[in-house]
């Protein structure tokens, strides 16, 4: 872009910025908390859903349909990326990092896995939940393909298991939704069965199950994304 075009866009953007700033400062800065729906949620979320963490209560119970849409977005991104990057040539294995790094990660990966399982299952008690835990699970597969080379990742965590995990997780989520209908309620109803007291692990009805399902689904999805991205090929990628 020539110099003048550069300057013009900067001037136009700063003018736009000034108008936005003036407009945004006119909003009353006191957020009327009373008449908003969060007042109801804060007051009786623990009774209705059993989850102590209100953000997880909203994500996986009050607005669980949003999280279904959300995990479909990730599913769509994954199938889009696989559609584009499914190379016809044989993936060449990148040969991983030095021995020291491999040994340290050998010791570290189980704890990362444990941490992500903790984040997923304790979604309704402490901060965290299916999405964040699932991304950490995906990070483990990223570690595999960087530190140990994508061929190691290919053998340990084969693409078929990844697709099975992802699509299985998604179908399980819809199954959990229909389970709500089976119990006489509506789609994605929170069945408060096997409820062992307030703060215990399995205490918020279907929220922990939705958490684990989403966690594994996102972990597998990110593993697929990263695996199909990291592949290197020798010659020019073959077309359709």
């Amino acid at each position, binding site marked *: *872009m020539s110099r003048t075009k*550069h300057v013009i*866009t*900067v001037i136009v*953007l*700063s003018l*736009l*910025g000034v108008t*936005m*700033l003036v407009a*945004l*400062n006119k*909003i009353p800065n006191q*957020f009327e*908390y009373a008449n*908003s*729906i*969060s007042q109801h*949620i*804060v*007051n009786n979320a*623990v*009774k209705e859903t059993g989850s*102590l*963490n*209100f*953000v997880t*209560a*909203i*994500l996986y119970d009050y*607005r669980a349909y*949003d*999280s279904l849409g*959300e995990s479909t*977005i*990730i599913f*769509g*991104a994954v199938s*889009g*990326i696989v559609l*584009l*990057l499914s190379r016809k040539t044989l993936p060449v294995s990148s040969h991983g990092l030095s021995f020291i790094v491999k040994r340290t990660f050998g010791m570290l990966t189980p704890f990362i896995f444990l941490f992500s399982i903790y984040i997923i299952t304790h979604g309704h008690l*402490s*901060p965290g*939940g299916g*999405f964040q835990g699932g991304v950490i699970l995906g990070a483990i597969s990223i570690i595999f393909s960087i530190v140990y080379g994508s061929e190691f990742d290919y053998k340990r965590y084969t693409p078929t298991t990844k697709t099975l995990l992802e699509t299985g997780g998604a179908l399980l989520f819809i199954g959990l939704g229909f389970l709500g209908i089976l119990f006489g309620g509506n789609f994605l109803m929170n069945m408060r069965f096997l409820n062992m007291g*307030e*703060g215990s692990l399995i205490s918020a009805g279907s929220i922990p199950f939705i958490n684990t399902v989403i966690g594994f689904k*996102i972990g597998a999805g990110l593993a697929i*994304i990263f695996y199909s*991205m990291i592949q290197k090929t020798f010659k*020019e*990628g073959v077309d359709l």
Partner: protein
Amino acid sequence: MINNFVFVALFLLGFYAILVKKNLIKMVIGLNIMEGAIFYWFITLTDRGGTIPIVNSSQVVTNLNDPIPQALILTGIVIGASTSSFLLTLIIELNKFTSSTNPDQLGGMIED
């Protein structure tokens, strides 16, 4: 007042990156900065100075932060991550045909 200024500054910085920058990867970075700006602005708007929206038992805590914006932003962050990872795949794909990541040969964002 400060938060609105930060939001507008970051939002337009990202917008500037998309309009002007030569490198496609820089444009995706600008997109991420725009999304981060909106999410941070939403949190500052609805921050009542309350405590973390997690209670340790069923007694009602009065002064809690609003949990709904946090749920919306969590969904937004994950949407932003999947859109930018797909955009980057398209950039890898484009690089097979043109050896540079310069959007000008794309005919630029504005002209057809």
